[in-house]
Every structure is written in C-alpha cells, then in structure tokens.
C-alpha cells in the first residue's frame, strides 16, 4: 500500500440548530486504502459524507484533494458538481437505480449530455466491460434492474460510480442487504479495486466485517472523531467501547424451560400479488419463555408473515392459533385483544401517527379500554398521566407529551412503541426488525426488553436481518427464504448464511 494521501478533511464542522452534528472532524484517506467509518446513528457519519459531496455547506473547515501528480487542490465546498468532478463517488445504502431501465442505461444515466442526440452505447459497453474485468464486479447489462437480485443491483450501483472515473468511493452500509457470502464476495472485489489505486471509505455498523476488510478504522461519536486505529491492532471490544464510550450491556440469556405454545401457524399460505408478498405452507410454533428468531434477507416474505400475525393480511389458507385457539376473525384489533404485541418493521409508517401527540400515540391501541375513556369521551388526565408514567418507565425522551410524535428521534419512537406493547403484558410479542436503524444503546435496550418479556413468560418472534442479533437472542432459529420457513439445526453464521441464500446447509 502506498502512503500518499488522496483526500484530507480538515476541521469540518456543521451544526443543525442546537445540534453539533460534526465538530471539527479531520480525516486523511490514503491511496489504495479501505478506511472504515464507524459510529452509532447520529454520530455524524452521514453529515460528514454529505459535506464531502457538497450536499451540506460546512460551517468551517476545508477539504483537500490530492491528484496523482501530488498537486493539492482545495475542493469548493457545498458544490456537488465539484465533488463529482474531483472523482468522488458514492453508493448509497438505499439504491438509487431506475428499476425499469436496464443496468447499462442506469450506469450511463447522468454521464451523458442532456442535448446529445446519439448515444454511443458500444463505447460505454466496452468501458463497463473493462471495469468489470478489473474489479470482478459482474452483473448482466441488458436486463432491467428490477429483475436483478439485490446483490446484482448493488454491483450495478458500484459500477455506476466507477463508470464516472471515481478515485474515491464511499460505500454507505453496503452489506445491509447482502447474505454473508455475498458480502464476502463484495469485499474481495473491493480489495481488487484498491489494488488499482482506488481509495474506499466504507460506512458500517457491523464490527466483524470492518475488522476483516478495512485497513484503518476511524470512529465517530457525537460529531467528534474519537479514535483512529489500524485494523490489525483493533478488536471488537475495543471498537465498541470507542463507539459507545462504554461497554454495551446486553443481559445474558438465562436458561429457562419453554412452556406451552402461545402461537401456532398451521400451513399458513398467503398468495400475494408478487413473490415478495407471498408465503407458502408456513408452520411454526412459539412457546412461552421462548424467543424464536427468524433470519432472512429482506424481501423473502418476512413482511407478509409479520402482517399475517399482526392481523393486517388475511391468509389464503391455513390457521393461526393463539393459546391453542384458532383465530377466526383476523384483524388487528382482534389480534391485539387476544394478547399479541406487535413491534412493526417500519416504525414511522405503521408504528406512530406522526402528527398526533406522543401521549395520544401511547394509547392508540387502547382506545376501547375504560382506562382512558368513558362513554366515548377521552379522559385527558388519564392520558397525560399514562404518558408521563410510561415515558419515565421506558425512558422516552422528547419535547413533551403534547408534541407531535414525529419530532421524536428514531430510538425514542421505538421506545414509545415498546412502552405501548410491553405495558399490555402480551402473551406473544412480534418484533419485526426491532433494532433496525437504532444506535447501540437503544438496540441494547430493545434486546433487554425482549429478554425480560421472555423471562416473564411471553413468547417472542424476532424477525431480523441482523444475524448477530438473531444468534445472541434466539432460543430457536428458523430461516425464511422465498416464502418458505425452515428450521436451522446448527446455529452458526456460515450455515445460516447458506440457508438465507436458499442453499441447503
């Protein structure tokens, strides 16, 4: 690895209102290096990258780009075109591809002049072919992107960046949607690309892959750079402590004997309009004192499975039994009545009514109970009292009970939902991606609450893409692939990874 820097960020700062999102962050990136940028949510990673791309105007600081000949140039700030021209490319966590266009069109998109009359496709094909050969990133070019697998789409996304002749590539959580095997392949490709002089910044939450594939790790916390270590000297514990400032405490799972089944799905089949909305012949049972983990890459039927258990979707055939009794009328209010607590996957869309107040969101599943209403009129005092009780019990912090719930941070929205779910002391808890997008502290809180509920005798279904979470919390693990559930006999990353990719482990 050569050691000349290609990018120097010097004292970049940015404040939003009263929040110091980035506090004088300085960072160097060397040629041919993979630099991992780690930090909890809200640590300033995205803010920093947005300043690099010119999306945000920094309050102070400079960005210097050093070209191949060693000439240092100061990058004009707050100007995306200048950043692109300087050879900075970004692959976003959420794909920015046009699904109805083929891969080649997507790659060429944005690199052609608007008024150009003829498109030179063959030249583009040659160029893409060369990039594919050099990097090993292969994806079919003549298929509509919507028909590609997630892994292929991501490769298209990276090819699109490389096509613009980037020298510095930023990858934002590139493995969030990949199987472990696909992720490993991606990192091989990245390593190949860095040999050709590309420098990579990659943002991730997953300590394991950061340790395995980066050369250097920079850790951000509360908008400050709190540490920078060479990956060789680092270990998970060290980095986690840097990120959070202390060791995270997830209480250990105590051995406990599972009881009678609380939820049984009996040959549940849902024929949705597309494959991702269908499940076929799903059988499962969750017992008291048990956490059943369901692993899988998103889009394999988790959402529709969760919707069926939540009462949002009626099964085409099959039965849902709670406490041994078949639920005849499947709708959310009935499911809630029978003692099922649901933590929805998309907490902003399904979890809260953003415009209504925090206090109102806390009672939204409780409207028929005598606690907060009598004869159809709401008891304001009881609602406010409930809100202040739950806020302190579940540590929900925000601008107050009357503020619209949308003003809460993601972690606090999740705590609000947890408060609602756990206060009803449910027999069964359905937790669908409960820690997605949460910082380590909030995620640990969710995990502890689930373990507490298990201790108290609830059955828990934990649907998650995060294998570490599944492995650390579950008593039993099943894997969902292509709408089918299979039990995982061995609980380790490799065999689960293979099952998630649809191969028989």
């Amino acid at each position: 690895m050569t050691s000349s820097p290609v990018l120097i960020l010097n004292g970049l700062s940015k404040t939003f209102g009263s929040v110091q999102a980035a506090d004088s962050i300085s960072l160097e990136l060397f040629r041919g290096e993979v630099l991992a940028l780690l930090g909890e949510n809200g640590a300033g990673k995205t803010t920093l990258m947005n300043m690099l791309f010119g999306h945000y105007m920094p309050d102070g600081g400079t960005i210097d780009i050093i070209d191949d000949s060693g000439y240092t140039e100061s990058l004009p700030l707050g100007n995306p075109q200048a950043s692109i021209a300087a050879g900075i490319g970004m692959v976003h966590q959420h794909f920015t591809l046009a699904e109805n266009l083929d891969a080649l069109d997507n790659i060429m998109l944005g690199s052609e002049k608007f008024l150009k009359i003829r498109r030179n496709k063959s030249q583009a094909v040659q160029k893409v072919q060369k990039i594919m050969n050099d990097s090993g990133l292969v994806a079919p070019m003549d298929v509509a992107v919507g028909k590609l697998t997630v892994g292929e789409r991501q490769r298209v996304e990276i090819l699109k960046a490389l096509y613009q002749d980037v020298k510095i590539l930023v990858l934002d959580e590139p493995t969030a949607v990949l199987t472990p095997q696909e992720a490993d392949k991606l990192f091989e490709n990245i390593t190949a690309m860095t040999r050709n002089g590309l420098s990579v910044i990659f943002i991730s939450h997953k300590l394991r892959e950061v340790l395995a594939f980066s050369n250097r790790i920079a850790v951000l916390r509360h908008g400050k750079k709190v540490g920078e270590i060479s990956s060789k000297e680092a270990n998970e514990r060290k980095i986690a402590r840097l990120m959070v400032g202390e060791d995270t405490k997830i209480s250990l799972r105590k051995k406990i004997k599972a009881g009678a089944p609380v939820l049984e799905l009996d040959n549940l089949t849902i024929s949705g309009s597309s494959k991702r909305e269908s499940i076929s012949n799903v059988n499962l049972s969750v017992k008291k004192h048990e956490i059943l983990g369901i692993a899988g890459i998103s889009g394999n039927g988790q959402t529709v499975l969760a919707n069926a258990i939540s009462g949002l979707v009626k099964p085409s055939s099959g039965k849902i039994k709670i406490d041994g009794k078949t639920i005849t009328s499947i709708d959310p209010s009935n499911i809630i009545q029978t003692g099922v607590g649901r933590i929805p996957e998309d907490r902003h869309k399904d979890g809260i009514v953003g415009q209504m107040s925090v206090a109102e969101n806390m009672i939204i599943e409780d409207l028929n109970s005598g606690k907060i209403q009598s004869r159809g009129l709401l008891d304001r005092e009881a609602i406010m009292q409930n809100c202040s009780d739950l806020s302190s019990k579940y540590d929900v912090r925000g601008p107050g009970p009357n503020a619209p719930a949308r003003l809460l941070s993601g972690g606090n929205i999740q705590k609000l939902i947890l408060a609602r779910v756990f206060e009803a002391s449910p027999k069964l808890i359905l937790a669908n991606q409960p820690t997605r997008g949460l910082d380590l502290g909030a995620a640990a809180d969710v995990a502890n609450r689930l373990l507490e509920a298990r201790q108290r005798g609830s059955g828990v279904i934990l649907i998650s893409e995060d294998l570490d979470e599944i492995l650390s919390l579950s008593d039993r693990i099943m894997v969902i692939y292509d709408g089918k559930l299979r039990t995982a006999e061995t609980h380790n990353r490799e065999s689960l990874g293979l099952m998630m990719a649809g191969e028989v482990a």
Partner: protein
Amino acid sequence: MIRIEPRNANSAIFSYGVPILSAFIALILASIPLWFAGAPVLISYVEMAKGVFGSKFAFSEMLTRATPLMFTGLAAALAFRAKLWNIGAEGQLYLGAMAAAAIGTGLIEAPAFILLPLIIAFGCAAGSVGMVVPALLKTRYGADEVVTTLLLNFIIIIFLQYMLEGPLKDPMGLGWPQSSPILDQGMLPPLMERMRVHSGLVIAIVCALIAQFMLARSVWGFKLRAVGENVFAARHAGIKVNRTILSAALISGALAGMAGVSEVAGLKGYLTSDLSPGFGYVGIIVAMLAGLSPIGVVISALFIASVFVGADSMSRAMGVSSYLADLVVSTSLLCVLIGGFFSRFKMVRTSLKGQN
C-alpha cells in the same frame, strides 16, 4: 442559492397568522384589478366594508350568507380530516333541500316542534346517503371519491331538475320549475325581525362547537384524526379504518344536507334549481381557509360571506363587477395554500461561495 427545509414544529403564530395574513394579501392583490377597472381603491373597500358593517340589515345579510357556508365548510372540514375528499357537498346540499321540500310542503301536517325536527332529520339523512354511497364505493372497491362525489353533483342536479318539473313542482307556480312553499310551521324561525337571518345560523354554530369538541375529546374524533393522518398506523393499531371513513362520510353528508335544509326551510321557503350559487364548492375553500378546524370554519365562513356581500354592495356603489368577490375569495385560498407551505417549510439561504 435558496434551499427549502422542513420546519421542526408548527408554531402557533403560523397556524393562526397564515389565514389572517392571506386574507389581507388577497384584498391587497384584488386592488390591482379594481384599480384597472378605474375605481378608487380605498373608497371601494370602504364601500365594501359598509356593505357588511354599514347597517344592521347589511350585517344580517352577511350572516344569512355565511350560514350555508358554515354547514358546507364543516362538511368539507370533517371529511378532509379523515382524508376523505368530499367534493360533493353541492349535490348533498340539494339532496337535503329536496328532502326538506318533500317533507315540508304538505306531505306531513304537524306542529312545528314535530315537523321541523322531521325536516332536519330527513334533510340530513338525504345528504348522508349522497356521501355514504361514494364512501362505500371507496372502501369496497377503491373508487376514487374525488371523481365519484364530483360527478354525483351533476347527477343530483339533473335529478333535481326532474323533480322540480315533476313530483315536486308547485301546481300554483305558474309553470316555474319550483316547489310549493314550505308550510309556515316547517320554517326555521328568524333571528331578527324583518331580517332574513334565521336560526339555521345558530344550528351551524352549535354544530361547529360540537364538531370541535368531538374531534379533540372523543374516541371517534381520535380515530378520525388517526385515520386521516396515517391510515397505516391507524390500521396497525386496530382502528377500524373503513368504519371510521364511513362515519366521517355520514356526518359530512348530513352537514351538507343541512345546508340545503337551512336554505330551503330557513331562507327561501321553497326549492328552486338555483338555490345554491356553489355553496358546496365554496365550502371547500371555507374549510381550507380554516385549516380544517371546525371553529375556524365559522370564522372563515363569516369572512367569505363578508367578501361576497360586501363586493355586491361595492359593485352597486362603484359600478365595478361583483366578480371581484370571486377573485378575492380565490386569491385568499391561494395565499392560504402558499402560506401553508411556508408554515411547514422554511427557506434557508445558502451561499455557493466557499467559507468566509
């Protein structure tokens, strides 16, 4: 460069200030065509004010005009709160008016304390039917209620013309397409002697107060707001979405029907096909101007009625067209919509130059 960013919290100044400011800006903007028409602007507005506040009669006329607007404004506001886009208040108004005319012109002979509630009940029920049908089409088959309610207006108006030429036609009406007069004991009592303002106004204000209370304090209002703000979360939380939408349709239709009852049995005394100069559509503006708040509807109905009544008298005094009223009303709506944008977003100046 200017960037647009969402505001964190809606400040109270904006939610009250925007409509009031919009009304003023609309009046200022309307002075431009007024000036083009060759009328002295200030004097014209003084005439306009006189037309509303100049005499007890003028003021009562404004109240008379505001009454149906309050009903149709409430009809729109409640439905819109549930994101149920009822554009059919005009049709529902005529359904209510037809029911009132059918019951009140001699079908039933009863003293006022029986006949009046009957007329109101049937009028509201007829309006409800006019809104529940499109709502059912929406909840059952996903038919867009904007299209169905809007088109139903035309169907109902043609049906009205048929009724006025047929079953409801006044045999003593010298061939005019109008109904027989409502019986005296079927008329809503007037509020002031020798003035046209009638007790429909009181009913409208009471309806607004009840609606305001129910929205804020009742479980039904809670469900309505939840469904309107985020239907996914509402459904997830076990709120029966379709039932809530249907209940909103029922009440919205009833209020629009009540507008028709109040015009027939409060003001005109008989039914004609020009009973409403678009009260149903103006109700939408009233509701939007009020920010969908029921109490706000009362105030914005008074404002819009003032503009209409005032512009009439201005046009008589100054010799300018009374269409200026439409102009003021529509510019004020545009200003509110633009103002609503500014209350949700803020403009941030960003410089393209590097650091200073």
